[in-house]
């Protein structure tokens, strides 16, 4: 089936079988391997991307469902000159990654939430809910919570 995905601003005209999930198409057809696959059951969150601004599990959505949509992956977070996003800088500052396998998923779920609502940092329960969305086997979660909180506080200061 012929579909068009806009991934990180770039248009990809693709011909994909309906059975293929978005994660596989991003990794194999668009060659964007920053989106990781862990469980492929919706549990771990490593495959998190934004579809039309919303954080989803790309292992549980078919690529054909996303025809005409705009997708953002971890590769799209950095600025044009390669400068990491505020959230990426916060992850680095707070040591919120060790092996890094889970990191793209956490970055995308938190980016989606922060962009949808810059006041996120006011509500520790909502940050908690985001941190609980994904699995990390290295960090013990606390540094991830700190990093998201730090970025949220920065976003709050910048918000009008």
């Amino acid at each position: 089936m012929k579909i068009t995905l806009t991934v990180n601003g770039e248009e990809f005209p693709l011909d994909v079988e309906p059975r293929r999930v978005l994660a596989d198409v991003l990794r194999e057809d668009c060659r964007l391997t920053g989106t990781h696959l862990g469980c492929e059951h919706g549990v771990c969150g490593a495959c998190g991307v934004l579809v039309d601004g919303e954080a989803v599990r790309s292992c549980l959505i078919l690529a054909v469902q996303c025809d005409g949509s705009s997708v953002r992956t971890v590769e799209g977070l950095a600025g044009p000159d390669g400068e990491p996003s505020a959230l990426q800088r916060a992850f680095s500052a707070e040591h919120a990654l060790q092996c890094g396998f889970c990191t793209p998923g956490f970055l995308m779920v938190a980016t989606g939430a922060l962009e949808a609502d810059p006041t996120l940092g006011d509500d520790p329960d909502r940050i908690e809910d985001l941190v609980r969305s994904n699995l990390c086997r290295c960090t013990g979660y606390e540094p991830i919570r700190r990093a998201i909180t730090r970025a949220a506080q920065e976003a709050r200061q910048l918000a009008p």
Partner: protein
Amino acid sequence: MKPAAFDYVAPRTVAEAVDALGTGGRRAQVLAGGQSLILEMRLERIRPDLVVDINRIPALDELRVRDGTLRVGALVRHRAFESAHAVPGPLGALFARAVGNIAHPPIRARGTMVGSVAWAHPASEWCAIAVALDADVEMAGPRGARNLAAGDFFQGPLKTAGQPGELITSVRYPLLGDDTGVGFVEHRRTHFCFAQVAAAAALTARGGVISEARIGLVNCADRPLRAHAAEAALTGVEIGPPLDGYRLPENHPFARAGRIAAERDAAPVAEPYADLEYRGHAIAVVVARTLCQAASDQRSRARALEGESR
């Protein structure tokens, strides 16, 4: 595993979807949020020939209140219920208490309430609430539209009275009045698990006396249940003062109702980490706690009503 090959259509109207589902002899499957279906297709427990994606049917995402009835369209996502104000009155509060237990934000952004009803998992929060509140399941099929009471719709684990070729267009709930208090309590092993046991309760009281109790049981049988015997034991009981502490006295009416729910209403199935004795105990405790929460909600709503009338 990757899903096996299938054909895919994305109709724009309910009529087109029903037509597609009825295309002779092929196994067709509705795709709503896909948060259960795509997983089942990966596990090859479901292997459709045709997937009918309803996400591009604009009419289905409506959440509407009319004449005291809430109508939830087939594309209303779990997330829509996270705010207690999305739905008026105590019903909105009940949905908001329940929804936080369903998976996590990215799953709630895609998965739908109606999809959960269609899927009919015994541990689904929405299914038990639908049964407890006498919701109506509205379906469109090759022979036209029909309605079925939630109590008759669920027939076993992942089994419903829905026929192949039928599309659920909405689920309808009667709104709850302000004399009703609600509670929802869930027990599970980890945040990523489905409920081991959960309960929903709606207690209506007049003058401090319970006039109607509704209790829905999650994962307490092979299907969602309404705890009729426990409900009957509560009518006419005083809603009583708030209780301190976590453990209820043995002879408290809510503790008794919990035991009745466990012994007479529930028909639990043993699971790894939860044999029948454990499950029975957990059901009694969870139901009693849910009733305490509903009673406390009822008292604060009653106080707010008194305040208004003064």
